[in-house]
């Protein structure tokens, strides 16, 4: 390295993003949105009050205001929902794939028509920036219904020379990070295959699921084909333990996934579990660095890091470490954190007070372990649950930051020297949901893809989702695949 470069490094010229030209607030209007004061359960095509007589509040995490009340379903309610699904099942199977496809197409189109309303509610109830709910969550949810609508009358072609039958009643439990999208991931393939469902959204994000229930009613779907029960862990457990449920599809934490597997052992219930992750994003020295940096930012800060496949571990080859870290820091300066309803917001609110505590606890752990911390210079709003985008530098493989899922905007940066070391470190985790590889060399990317133990591997990109592509994990990230043709197999008995 010549003397000029060494001096440049020491001086570290910086760019100023605190500009004279500031973007004016650009809030998305919520005037057109109707949120009821209270939502009941959706069972057998009707909105019914819960047997528990109990309701809980749904909170807007950006303002801490109460959005509405949500019914708490108890065992009796879950039983009613399963019975309604069971009752609807024979007719739903009998009408055939072509008819089922029509209903799914109708649901997809209605989601598109009401996309603006859904995206606004998703941001109010969940805290994610309107840009993401508008451009990603809702369009993808519609895309999943469209995709599986197309399969409904072609199931035999997906499994040539095999006989396919629906499973029956599917119990589906979904997380709070992509509320409507996860509902679509679960409901669309199940219905296409001829099953009926009992779906439970996460307790902090039930509103779009209940709006979906209204939409499903408007679509004229036969009563009981889709039932939506709201509540917390106990409601979920009631679904898992119900004797007349044939299939459990769960997306959420590894801890809960393990307990589900324990409780259904020996019952013959079919399962798919999509659990946590601690994805490695690996940057080689020959990578397109600017695009890689953008991919890393997108990988960890998309949806405030509440993404099971988030690229929460960055492995960067030592020869380009300084450049990558400098550029990450610069990029952090231009991220806009704040009101999820503002169209310019990049990072919205953390989904709940509990999750914010989990994340801040991990940040404290990182500090205590002595790793260098870098946080974006952003003003944190006084109200609401917000967390500044955070980098930890030179994190050790043995650190909890590198081993445990944080599910927030916290990136653990590690370095490596050789390809083998990158593979070994990336695979040295109990998880295996996704990974990212950044290199200009195709052979290297394919070699990495073959050796990384992860369900999804992105090369020179990250966090790309498409209904045609299967998604799922290795090891503690779960089993079974959702999306694509693989997603059909999870809802069929193939013989």
């Amino acid at each position, binding site marked *: 390295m010549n003397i000029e470069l060494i001096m440049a490094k020491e001086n570290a010229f910086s760019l100023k993003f605190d500009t004279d030209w500031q973007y004016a607030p650009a809030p998305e209007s919520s005037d057109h949105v109707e949120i009821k004061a209270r939502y009941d359960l959706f069972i057998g095509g009707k909105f019914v009050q819960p047997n528990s007589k109990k309701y809980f509040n749904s909170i807007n995490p950006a303002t801490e205001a109460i959005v509405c009340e949500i019914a708490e379903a108890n065992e009796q309610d879950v039983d009613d929902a399963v019975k309604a699904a069971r009752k609807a099942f024979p007719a739903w199977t009998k009408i055939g794939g072509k008819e089922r496809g029509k209903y799914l197409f109708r649901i997809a189109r209605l989601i598109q028509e009401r996309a603006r309303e859904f995206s606004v509610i998703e941001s109010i109830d969940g805290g994610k920036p309107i840009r993401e709910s508008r451009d990603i969550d809702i369009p993808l949810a519609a895309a999943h219904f469209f995709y599986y609508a197309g399969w409904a009358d072609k199931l035999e072609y997906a499994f040539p020379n095999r006989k396919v039958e629906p499973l029956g009643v599917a119990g589906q439990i979904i997380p709070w990070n992509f509320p409507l999208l996860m509902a679509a991931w679960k409901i669309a393939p199940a219905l296409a295959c001829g099953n009926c469902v009992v779906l439970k959204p996460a307790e902090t994000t039930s509103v779009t699921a209940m709006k979906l229930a209204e939409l499903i009613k408007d679509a004229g779907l036969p009563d009981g084909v889709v039932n939506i029960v709201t509540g917390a862990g106990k409601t979920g457990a009631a679904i898992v333990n119900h004797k007349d449920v044939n299939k459990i599809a769960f997306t959420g934490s590894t801890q809960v996934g393990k307990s589900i597997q324990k409780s259904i052992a020996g019952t013959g219930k079919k399962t798919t579990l999509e659990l946590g992750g601690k994805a490695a994003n690996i940057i080689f020295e020959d990578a397109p660095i600017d695009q*890689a940096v953008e991919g890393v930012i997108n990988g960890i800060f998309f949806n405030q890091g509440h993404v099971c496949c988030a690229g929460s571990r960055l492995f960067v080859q030592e020869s380009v470490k300084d450049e990558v870290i400098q550029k990450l820091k610069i990029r952090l300066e231009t991220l806009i954190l704040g009101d999820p309803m503002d169209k310019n917001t990049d990072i919205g609110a953390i989904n709940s007070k509990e999750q914010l505590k989990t994340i801040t606890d991990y940040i404290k752990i990182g500090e205590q372990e002595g790793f260098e911390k870098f946080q974006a210079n952003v003003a944190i709003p006084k109200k609401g649950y917000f967390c500044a985008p955070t980098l930890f530098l030179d994190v050790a493989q043995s650190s909890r930051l590198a081993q445990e899922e944080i599910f927030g905007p916290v990136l653990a940066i590690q370095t490596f020297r050789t390809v083998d070391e990158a593979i070994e470190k990336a695979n040295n985790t109990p998880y295996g949901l996704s990974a990212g590889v950044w290199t200009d060399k195709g052979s290297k990317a394919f070699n990495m893809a073959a050796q990384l133990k992860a369900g999804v591997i992105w090369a020179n990109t990250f966090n790309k989702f498409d209904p045609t592509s299967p998604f799922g994990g290795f090891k503690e990230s779960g089993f079974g695949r959702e999306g694509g043709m693989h997603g059909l197999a999870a809802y069929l008995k193939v013989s």
Partner: protein
Amino acid sequence: MDFTKSPKIDQVGLVERAARFKTRSIKKDAKIQGLKMALSMIDLTTLEGKDTEGKVKQLCYKAMHPDDRLDVPTVAAICVYPNYVAIAKKTLGASGVKVASVATAFPSGNSNLTVKLEDVKMAIDAGADEIDMVISRGKFHQGEYQFVYDEIATIKEACGTSRLKVILETGELGAADNVRRASDIAIHAGADFIKTSTGKISPAATMPVTLLMLEAIKDHYLKTGKMVGMKPAGGISDSKTALQFLVMLRETLGNNWLTNEWFRFGASRLTNDILLQLKKQATGIYQSGDYFSKD
């Protein structure tokens, strides 16, 4: 300097990042401020075979007085062929509007260095404040990077105190990697500005290609502390696009580049669209094009 080692660009990621800037919502005061800034960065251009002194004079007046009924700045410069530099300089007087001249056998650049230097000298002698040269794309494609570098360096020397804008003609370079390499060559050879296009070739100034050139400028600045300007030219004809370019500039290079010292739009039709939008912001009404002077 080995320009074959220029950083690699991933085209897909580049396009994606550029598209992201378009999602920024620029409203109200931010919009007015942005539009005025864009206007002040325009190199009002006429580069036609049928250019005349009359046309150039008209353009100079427009550059100094985009619309006297609105509170707007002058444009940054006017951009003409070398033989109209003198008349432009005279017409613009002490208005502060600069005169830029294309040179070096514009637009193809297919001539020898002697002719190119003569071309530059003619413009400089006539009083050009800025020279917009073209690189030898043929030599670039033949892999003769040193030739391209030397040519730029020689022209830079001939420019004296006039600022040099180096046109890469990105529409003829093909791959993003080539644009990055050409940017690095121009920057290292002493370009004061790097510029996308002549305006004679399509595609011209797209957002992705401009972004990757901004990133080349950024890398150079981070390593050396030296600023280089950027001029997207060709194809930017409406206010919305201009604002999106400014958003991209703001979030890639930051505050220091948000001035016509370091950023220009090479455009002719953009001016009136900005005036139309500013009028709309002031009155709430979109007016017909007839209310804005063509030249």
